[in-house]
C-alpha cells in the first residue's frame, strides 16, 4: 500500500498538467480511512491534488469514490488519516469548512430553485445586499453584474436571465459549476457530471473544465467512462474496495490498463448459485427501441437468470421500463410463454406473470404503512376474494409459508413493512410476486443500498425464485453480483446489445470493456 502511494507522484511525471502545476500539491490526504459500521468504505487512501490539473477518480460502484468525495468536501468525518491544505494540516468537519479552503463540489443532481433565474440561483443563500445593514434589501444590480461575470467565464452570460427550467442539462451543469466557483475555488469536484449529457454537451463541459484548470484550479473528475477520463484527465486515481490501487498519469494510461486496475484479479467469489435446470423458452423480446433509436432483442428461458450490467446511460433502465409496462414501446414485440404482451398494460402483464422488483423497495416496491400481509395481498387480492370479501385467513396461511420460505424477519404477517430492514423489504416484494405466481421476475438493481448480509439473503431468494421455474432478468450495477448469479450476461450500451456471455465463459475484463466502450 505504502509503496504504491510513494511511487505515484514519480509515475505521474510528464503529464499534460505538469507545466501549470506548482511543485507542491495544494491539497494532500494521507491514510484516509472511513468505515460505516463493519464496512470499510475507505482504507488508508493517499491522495495529492495539484493546482492546474484535472484529476480523475475512477472505480466500480462501491469502490470508494463517493466516500472520498464526501471526505474532501467535508460531508463525512474521517475515522483516521490527515488532510492538509498548502502543507498545513486541516480538519474538514462540514461543507462550510471545505468551502473556506477553496473546495467546491458540483453534485450529480444539483438542487436548484427551478422557477427562479440563473442569477438568483448562482447567489442562492448569499444574495448581495444593499442599503443600510438593518434593512434586508437585495442588491439586484450587483447580483446581475456578478452573475453575468461568473457566467462570462464560460461564455454563457446570456443565460443569466433565464429560469433554471429553461436550461438544457448541460447548461444547468455549467451554471452549477459557475455557482460553485463564484468565490475562488482551488479544488472543484465534479461528481459524474457527464452522466446525462450528450457528446457535444460533454465537449462543452470539457472546455469549461480545461478553462478552470488553465486558470490554476484542480478539477476532480468522477466518471464511469474511460473514454472521457482518458480524454480530459491529467492524472487518474483508481480505487477498488476502498483502497487506492494507484495514481497514474494519463499519458501512461490506456483503457485496458485502467480496466485491469479497476477490476482487479479476484473472480466472483462467495455467490451462492444453485444448480437449476434451464428449460424451455419463456420470454422473447424482439426489436424493442429503448428510446435511443437502436433496437434490441433478447430471450430468457425457464429457470434462467439473465444478467444485465447497468449504469446510467446504458439503456438498461429504459429496457426494464418497457418490459414491465411502465412505458409502452411503440414498436417491437414482447412475448411471455407465447402470449403477446407488447401492448398490454401493467396489470395485464402482472397477470401474465411478468413482475417487476424495483430498485428502491421502500419507494416503489412497497406501501410502507401497510403490513407484510397487506403488501403481499396487493396484486393478489382478487384471488383471495369470495363474495367481495378478502379471505384473510387463507391469505395469512399463504403469507406464513412465504415468510418461512424466504426467511423474512420479523416472521409476523401483520408487521408494518416500514419497520423492516432493507433486505427484508426486498424479500417482501419478491414474496408478493411469488404469491402472484410469477413466471418472470424483472429485478432492477435489487441490492442497491442494502448491506452485505442482506445482499447474500437476496441472492438466495433469487435462487429460490429460479428454483420455482421462474425466469429472472437481473439488472445490476454490481458486476461481481451479475457474474456470481447469472446464467448469461448481456451487455447493453446506448440501448444496443454489444456483448453476450455464457456462464462458462464469464470474463469480467471483457464485460467491463464492452460496457464502457473500451473494447
Amino acid at each position, binding site marked *: 500500500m505504502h509503496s504504491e502511494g510513494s511511487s505515484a507522484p514519480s509515475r505521474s511525471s510528464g503529464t499534460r498538467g505538469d507545466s501549470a502545476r506548482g511543485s507542491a500539491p495544494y491539497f494532500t490526504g494521507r491514510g484516509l480511512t472511513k468505515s460505516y459500521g463493519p464496512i470499510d468504505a475507505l482504507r488508508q487512501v493517499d491522495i495529492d491534488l495539484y493546482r492546474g490539473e484535472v484529476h480523475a477518480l475512477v472505480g466500480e460502484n462501491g469502490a470508494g469514490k463517493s466516500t472520498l468525495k464526501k471526505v474532501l468536501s467535508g460531508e463525512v468525518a474521517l475515522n483516521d488519516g490527515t488532510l492538509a491544505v498548502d502543507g498545513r494540516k486541516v480538519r474538514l468537519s462540514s461543507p462550510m469548512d471545505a468551502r473556506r479552503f477553496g473546495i467546491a463540489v458540483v453534485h450529480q443532481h444539483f438542487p436548484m430553485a427551478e422557477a427562479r433565474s440563473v442569477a438568483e440561483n448562482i447567489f442562492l443563500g448569499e444574495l448581495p445586499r444593499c442599503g443600510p445593514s438593518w434593512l434586508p434589501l437585495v442588491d439586484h444590480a450587483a447580483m446581475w453584474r456578478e452573475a453575468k461575470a461568473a457566467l462570462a467565464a464560460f461564455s454563457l452570460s446570456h443565460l443569466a436571465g433565464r429560469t433554471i427550467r429553461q436550461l438544457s442539462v448541460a447548461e444547468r451543469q455549467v451554471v452549477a459549476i459557475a455557482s460553485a466557483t463564484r468565490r475562488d475555488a482551488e479544488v472543484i469536484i465534479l461528481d459524474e457530471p457527464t452522466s446525462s449529457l450528450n457528446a457535444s454537451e460533454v465537449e462543452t463541459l470539457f472546455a469549461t473544465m480545461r478553462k478552470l484548470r488553465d486558470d490554476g484550479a484542480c478539477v476532480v473528475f468522477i466518471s464511469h467512462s474511460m473514454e472521457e477520463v482518458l480524454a480530459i484527465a491529467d492524472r487518474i486515481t483508481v480505487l477498488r474496495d476502498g483502497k487506492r490501487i494507484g495514481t497514474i498519469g494519463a499519458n501512461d494510461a490506456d483503457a485496458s490498463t485502467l480496466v485491469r486496475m479497476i477490476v482487479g484479479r479476484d473472480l466472483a467469489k462467495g455467490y451462492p448459485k444453485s444448480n437449476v435446470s434451464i428449460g424451455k423458452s419463456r420470454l422473447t423480446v424482439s426489436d424493442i427501441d429503448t428510446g435511443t433509436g437502436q433496437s434490441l432483442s433478447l430471450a430468457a428461458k425457464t429457470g434462467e437468470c439473465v444478467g444485465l450490467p447497468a449504469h446510467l446511460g446504458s439503456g438498461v433502465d429504459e429496457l426494464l421500463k418497457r418490459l414491465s409496462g411502465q412505458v409502452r414501446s411503440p414498436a417491437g414485440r414482447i412475448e411471455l410463454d407465447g402470449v403477446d404482451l407488447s401492448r398490454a398494460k401493467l396489470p395485464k402483464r402482472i397477470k401474465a406473470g411478468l413482475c417487476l422488483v424495483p430498485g428502491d423497495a421502500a*419507494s416503489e416496491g412497497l406501501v410502507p404503512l401497510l403490513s407484510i400481509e397487506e403488501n403481499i395481498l396487493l*396484486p393478489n387480492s382478487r384471488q383471495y376474494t369470495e363474495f367481495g370479501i378478502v379471505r384473510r385467513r387463507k391469505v395469512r396461511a399463504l403469507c406464513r409459508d412465504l415468510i418461512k420460505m424466504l426467511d423474512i424477519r420479523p416472521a409476523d404477517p401483520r408487521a408494518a413493512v416500514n419497520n423492516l430492514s432493507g433486505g427484508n423489504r426486498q424479500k417482501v416484494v419478491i414474496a408478493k410476486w411469488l404469491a402472484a405466481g410469477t413466471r418472470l421476475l424483472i429485478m432492477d438493481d435489487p441490492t442497491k443500498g442494502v448491506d452485505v448480509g442482506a445482499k447474500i439473503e437476496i441472492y438466495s431468494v433469487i435462487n429460490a425464485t429460479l428454483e420455482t421455474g421462474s425466469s429472472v432478468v437481473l439488472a445490476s450495477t454490481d458486476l461481481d453480483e451479475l457474474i456470481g448469479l447469472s446464467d448469461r450476461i448481456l451487455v447493453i450500451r446506448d440501448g444496443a446489445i454489444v456483448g453476450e456471455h455464457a456462464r462458462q465463459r464469464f470474463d469480467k475484463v471483457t464485460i467491463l470493456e464492452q460496457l464502457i466502450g473500451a473494447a
Partner: protein
Amino acid sequence: MSVAKQPNPPQSELAQTNHLEWFKHNWDRTAVPAIFIIMVLVFYLLNPNYLSTLNIINILNQVSILAIVTVGASVVVFGGGFDLSAGSVLALSAVVGSMVIAATGSITLGVMAGTAAGAAVGLLNGFVVGYLNVSPLIVTLGSMNVARGLAFIVSGGIAIHNLPALFSDFAITRTLGVPNLALGALVVFVIVHLVLKYTPYGLNVYAAGGNPVASRLSGVNVAWTKCMTYVISGACAGLAGMLLAARTNGGEPGAGILYELEAIAAVVLGGAALHGGEGRLWRSMMAILLLTALGNGLNIVGIHHYWKGVVIGGILIFAASLDAVKRRHR
C-alpha cells in the same frame, strides 16, 4: 436445515413493559379519548343536564349528519386526497332531492336523486383528481363553488318547502329510543367500515394513499381507486343533505357551509395523516362526536357559541402538533 429458533426476546420484554412505557408509544392515540372524557366530565360538573337523556339525543341528532359527511371525508383522506366540496354538495343534493320529492311525491326517488347528485359531483372530482392528476385542493375548491352555485340556481335562491310530513317525521322519530338520524349514520358507518376493512377495494384505498407508485407497480388501478373515494364522499354528502332536508323540513341552498372543514378536522383529529395511507374510520367518528359534544357543551354551560370555533380550532392545531412531534421522534 431447520434451525430451532430462539424465543424472540424483544417480544417477551414488550409484554412486561410498564404503563408509562406503553403511554410513551401511544400517547397520540390516547389524546382524543382522554380529551373527550375530561371534556364530558367538566361539562357534567358545570351542568348535570349535559348528560340528560334529552341532551344526549340532542347531541346524537346534531352529530348524525356531520358524521355521514365525515365518513366520506375519511375515505378520501385515507386514499391520499381531500374533499373540500362536501358542504356545497350537501346543499345541492338537499335542493335537488327535495325538488324531486316535491315534484313526484316519492321520498325514495328523492333520496336516491339527492344521493346520486352528490355522487355525480364526486365522480367529476374523482375523475379530474384520479385520472388527470390535478391537485385535489384545486379541484374540490372549484367544485365547491360550482355545487354551491348550482344549488342556488336550481332552487332559484329559496328553500324548497312543502315536503310530505312523512319525510320530516323520519328525522324526528326514534327507533328503540335511538334517533333515526343516528341510526342512519350508524348504517353508513358500518357499511363503509366493512368495505374498508374486508374488501380488496378497501385495501387498495390505503395502498393508493400510502404509496401510489408502488401500488401502481403492483397492478392496483390507482386512478380508479382514488376516483371512487370521491364518489363515496359525494354520495355520503348527498345522503347527508337529504337527512338535513328531512330534519329542517326543506332543501336549503345555503345549508352545510363549512361542514367539509369540520369533517376534515375530525379526520385529522382522529389521527389520520393528511398525506394519506393511514387512519381508522371509527376514530374519525369519535372525533366528530367529540367536536359536536364540545359545541353542545359550550352552549349548555352558557359560553357564547362564538367561542366554539376558537376551541375547536385550538384542539385541532394541538392534536396535529402532537402528531408532528411524534413523527419526528419516530
